[in-house]
């Protein structure tokens, strides 16, 4: 199952490098999940596309400063679910969300809550890298600019910091004014991560961030996630089970809109409760 391949090795090395941290906070077990502080909770969430139901009663608690992976076959509703978390689904006509989703106890679907503020607290990276047709600098500074930040020195500092945290600084520091569309696919995706973290969100949503990337670029992004999880609560959607196993602390398995199993990654991949989870992770369907 966990075949050794390129990115795998890279990750393995990184885990060794971060051994000290791993000792301090051992991977959460099923029972220990409750002990972690919770960043977001979903309670009996249903999503309707007109008459058809895409998400059927998902309840989960997403732990703070952990990487939570959502796995499942194509069309199981992973992306729909993750887009509910920053209310990006508001744009889709005919889509309805039921149930309660809260960020640090605040109901995000509360009509009194400002969705713009919410999205500033929850950053997102998409499946297809989507930098704006602007310069690298302006891409990263975008979130601050729309927030009304004009001070040059603040922008400069944030851009540099964000690019450094997204492990892109060394590659682009000499061409910050160049068009972002001139970057390679992997660089573009890291730029999107830099853009998402520039506004200091609490939660970072990643919707299959590596599906369009080659293994080397994928490895770089995964390393990045390791480094970022101290500061952010990360939720990553992936259909690549090795990736989920490598990067996440907690994993949820979704099937046909239902959350089949939600547990510590190690546990879910080694001793799944549900026969459907086992069937999926052993590759019998999906």
């Amino acid at each position, binding site marked *: 199952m966990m075949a050794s391949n390129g990115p795998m090795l890279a990750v393995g090395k990184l885990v060794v490098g971060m051994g000290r941290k791993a000792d301090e906070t051992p991977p959460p077990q099923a029972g220990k999940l409750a002990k972690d502080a919770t960043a977001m909770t979903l309670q009996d969430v249903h999503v309707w596309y007109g008459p058809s139901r895409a998400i059927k009663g998902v309840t989960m608690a997403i732990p703070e400063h952990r990487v939570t992976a959502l796995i499942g076959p194509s069309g199981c509703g992973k992306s729909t679910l993750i887009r509910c978390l920053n209310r990006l689904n508001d744009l889709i006509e005919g889509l309805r969300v039921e149930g309660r989703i809260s960020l640090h106890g605040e109901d995000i679907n509360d009509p009194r809550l400002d969705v713009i*503020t919410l999205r500033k607290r929850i950053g997102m990276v*998409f499946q*297809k890298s989507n930098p*704006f047709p602007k310069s690298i600098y302006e891409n990263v500074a975008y*979130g601050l600019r*729309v927030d009304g930040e004009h001070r040059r020195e603040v922008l400069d500092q944030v851009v540099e910091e964000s690019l450094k945290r997204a492990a892109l600084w060394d590659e682009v520091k000499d061409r910050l004014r160049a068009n972002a569309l001139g970057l390679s696919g992997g660089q573009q995706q890291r730029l999107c991560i830099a853009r998402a973290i520039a506004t200091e969100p609490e939660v970072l949503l990643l919707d299959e961030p590596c599906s369009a990337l080659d293994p080397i670029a994928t490895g770089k992004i995964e390393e990045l996630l390791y480094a970022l999880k101290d500061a952010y609560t990360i939720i990553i959607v992936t259909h690549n089970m090795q990736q989920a196993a490598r990067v996440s602390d907690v994993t949820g398995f979704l099937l046909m809109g239902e959350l089949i199993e939600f547990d510590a990654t190690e546990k879910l991949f080694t001793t799944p409760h549900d026969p459907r989870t086992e069937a999926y992770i052993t590759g019998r369907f999906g």
Partner: protein
Amino acid sequence: MTRTRRPRGRLQFLLDQLPVWMTGITFGVALLMIVGLLSLILAKGLGTFWPAPLEEVRLKDGSRYLGLVHRTEAIPHQFAADGRPLQRTFFRIGNRDLYGVDFVWVDDAQIDSQNRLRNAVAVERLEWGPFYGTVAQVKTPSGVIGGAADSVWLALRHELPGGRKRFQAIRHIEKKVIGDINFAMEEHRLAIKRLGLSRAAQSAERTQHERAIADLEARYAGIAEELERKRTDDRAYRVVLAEIGGRTKELPISSLVRVHRPNQLSWAGCVGVYLDRLREFIFEQPREANSEGGVAPAIFGTVMMTLLMTLAVVPLGVLAALYLHEYAKQGWLVSIVRIAVNNLAGVPSIVFGVFGLGFFCYLIGGTIDQLFFPERLPTPTFGGGGILWASLTLSLLTVPVVIVATEEALAAVPNGIRAASLACGATKFQTIWRVVLPAAVPGILTGTILAMARGAGEVAPLMITGVVKLAPDLPLDHLAPFLHLERRFMHLGFHIYDVGFQSPNVEASKAMVYMTTILLLGVVVCLNLTAMQVRGRLREQFRGAEV
């Protein structure tokens, strides 16, 4: 049983080629028509200014003509003994003031002899069209020069620049200096009228204006005196021209625009005359009911109107398209609106003209006059045709083009970057303004280019919303407020119509029609190239945005 593969026959092969031929031929026909049109215009237009030789023709009946060959054609239903059709020639003989006509038909069979008179002079003057003949005398305050053709000619050439200078000086006083005084006086008069309208007894202000008018009148008297002095001075310089029949015509030298002896011109001399005429055509005012001189005011009017139209149509079209595509809830109502907008492009342009006249000129312009210029009534200020109303009418005409192009450009902006912007915490307006619109700019510019091309060539709606045959003042000048949007203006498209079909001397001005057409095409091409340059630069910036 084995199935044998039948070899494809020659006919089958030809049938396969058929679509290629059909499409190719159709394309060829379209190309041919465009090339044909352009080459006709260029061939007819570009030769116009080349100085043609002056032919002296003696007919068998003893009459003589001096003129240039305008064109030759076969006489219908008349044949020579050998069966070939008889020819006749259309001579331009000029001297309209003496002959009453500019052109004469001569049957080639009647021509006794034809030769190029060495000393023949072609004179372009301010009135009565060209004069073809010889120079008899040149009169200056220092004496009269006559006699040998060459010495008179040299004397005339010598006096000509001085004459032009005197003419310019007189015209400067007549138009600019006196015009400015009139303008200022009119302002004071209107101010007095305004005081009367407000029924306030502000007599102090009134006397102030009256005093200003008196001052201006005193200045005018001084200038009029100077003008009269200059005119008297100018009248002393005269030239006597003789036509081929011996009659003479005496003219002030300042009324001559250009003289040359076409039969003695070297090739370089011809080029010089050609370039000088071209310069006059592009940079000078029209003369002789537009059939001679330049078209500078029409070029200016066309460019300014097109730019004003662009300034109006781009925001209008882009904002409408933004609403349609980004804000409006897509449904049957929006679909109907979209279809209606597309159909608007098919409404005859004269209908837009009538609407513009009724809505902009009479309703809006009339209201502006009532509110802001009551002292000038009943003379309309904004309440008649003007460059502003014409531009706005044309922007209504071209707005569908911009809307359609903008909508297409907006649809081509990937949804990914919209989502990315929203996920960064941008509002919908910020997303549109900072991300979507910049990415759509090249497409919007394509629509703008199409709108400009359509608008610059439109004539019908302009004829009733502000274009005139001859506008005394440009809509942009040195007098405050510099931009006079209420003024009527000249337009190259209308100029073509006017010179070609309304001119008293159609045959003489035919060439001007072709030249004006070339110029209009040139102006449209220039405007479009500029816009394309801008678009190219922006495209470079957004290269790869489709990813």
